[in-house]
């Protein structure tokens, strides 16, 4: 069952697969985490991954470069974030509803527009994507080299994102304010934090990060857009945030946990054809639940998450 761990080639592939399956989750989880830390529940991650993927395809198709794709992905992510912010922060519409509505809308809209914009080509688009960037010397280390140091650019971006989110949240003035508006917006407001502006910024930034997850799918993983290609990753990212107790570094580990168990279950499947494959497919979810239950102590979400702030409410 674990024999592949001993063979360097197989191990490298397994680890790379685990990492690649984790990357979209990492982007989405970091995005969602930033939103939730600021007190806005972003359940629309799933839709934003899809928007990002679609944007990446549009950009790469019409501009012909992966950078163009990246630009459009960011733009689409930011727009979806703006929509969430206007509805959830200013108009104070229930954040769960708008999240789900955005998901519904994104599924239909991106599929429909992809037919309008890429007529006939559908999933056989062959888009320009980013190639791997090998970091000199480091990439020659056996197993770790190919897994960590000769990856696609967006993989490094994802790893840097985790570091950046951590540093911003915990080492900067604005991070302190973000954590405060997620915990007690009324106190932060009273202390002079621009609650509304900052929540807008977090939601837009977070949504943009999530859309990078989609850009990764298109620009480095499969080089095409296919309907509904987010395939549930946004929901897993939501779970990873909780599993990581709203800490970026732990959420990152949770994404890896999920990605690696997904890679692992793919391998187990063909080693054990006698067992229904669903048993393996359920593995990452089961492990996540166990991890969640097994962790000592309770994890508390930011206290104000999901509650729109209204100054004049008692």
């Amino acid at each position, binding site marked *: 069952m674990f024999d*592949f761990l001993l063979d360097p*080639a*197989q191990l*490298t*592939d*397994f680890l*790379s*697969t685990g990492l*690649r*399956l984790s990357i*979209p989750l990492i982007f989405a989880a970091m995005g969602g985490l930033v939103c939730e830390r600021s007190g806005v529940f972003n359940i629309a991650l799933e839709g934003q991954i899809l928007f990002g993927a679609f944007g990446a395809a549009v950009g790469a198709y019409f501009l012909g470069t992966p950078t163009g794709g990246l630009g459009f992905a960011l733009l689409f992510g930011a727009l979806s974030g703006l929509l969430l912010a206007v509805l959830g922060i200013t108009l104070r519409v229930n954040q769960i509803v708008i999240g789900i509505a955005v998901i519904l809308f994104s599924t239909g809209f991106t*599929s429909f527009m*992809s*037919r309008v914009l890429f007529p006939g080509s*559908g*999933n*056989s688009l062959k888009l320009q994507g980013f190639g791997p960037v090998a970091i000199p010397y480091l990439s020659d280390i056996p197993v770790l080299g190919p897994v960590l140091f000769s990856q696609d650019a967006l993989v490094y971006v994802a790893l840097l994102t985790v570091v950046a989110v951590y540093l911003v949240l915990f080492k900067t003035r604005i991070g302190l304010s973000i954590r405060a508006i997620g915990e007690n917006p009324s106190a932060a407001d009273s202390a002079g934090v621009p609650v509304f502006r900052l929540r807008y910024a977090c939601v837009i930034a977070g949504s943009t990060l999530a859309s990078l997850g989609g850009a990764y*799918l298109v620009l480095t*993983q*499969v*080089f*095409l857009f*296919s*309907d*509904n*290609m987010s*395939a549930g990753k946004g929901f897993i990212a939501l779970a990873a945030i909780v599993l990581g107790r709203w800490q970026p570094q732990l959420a990152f580990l949770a994404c890896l946990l999920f990605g690696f168990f997904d*890679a692992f279950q*793919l*391998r187990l*499947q*063909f080693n054990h*054809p006698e067992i229904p*494959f*669903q048993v393996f*497919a359920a593995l990452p979810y089961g492990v996540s639940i166990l991890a969640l239950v097994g962790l000592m102590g309770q994890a508390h979400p930011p206290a104000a998450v999901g509650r729109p702030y209204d100054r004049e409410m008692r």
Partner: protein
Amino acid sequence: QAVKVAVALPGVITDKAFNQNVHDGLVKARETLGAEVAFTENVSQAEQVEVMSDYARRGYQIVVGAGGEYTDAAKRVATRFPKVRVVVLNGAPTQGVATVNFKNEEFGYVLGLVAGRVTKTGTAAAISAQQFAAFTTAVDGFKAGLKAAKPDGDVLVAYTNDWADVAKAKEATLNLISKGADVFMPYLDAGWVGVVQAAQERNAHTVGILHESDNNLTTARLDFARALVDAIGLFQKGQLEAKDYRIGLTSTDQLGPFNSAVPEAVRQEVQKAIEDIKSGKLNPAKG
């Protein structure tokens, strides 16, 4: 007067696979037979009866469910609308319903044979999203064909659980490659692209079901488009019956072009196998 045909599809018509193939059939029927056609994509299980009944009520004479999961719904619609001819592709033989099936094991056998001759590692793999009859019978044939060419060869099977998840299909393939597989039979909707991509990146090969690509050794044309056109033609002649139609592998036309990696000798061997299957000398499910 034009014949009216409607199809309920489980996926989208741009998948370059099963759903698109069926849709192609509709287009061809409109062009060549002057049929009036309609279709609905992404029909969920809960609405199968609703969609098919609605077409029947609207005066469509042929109502098609594209996939074995429509069998039950088809039976109910057929009972309710005895004048309508209900057809299920890949369906289980059912009273009152016309089912159209390919003999998947025959196609699988030939693909397995080619795979077995080209593989260097002796390991091939089949990938689908869900376990269902059409796939498992194809895999049976595939195994038998592979073993005929390489008695100590092996076939791995993986399920991605999502017909359209390209990334997952790609990762599954990459891992199968590192496990030693070098020929792949994807039985997926949009997800097959991922298999092809992975194979191309790692210099492995695919044997296609419907789709074609550079690294593809050959393709089983489980051509539902043609089957659908044929069925409509039969209907126009008043000959489409409520019975099980089985389409076997009878000629190399039903296979795609051979890749240059397939030696002439192997092409001959395939020809021979088709003859033997036709004559009953070869049982494709057992080898």
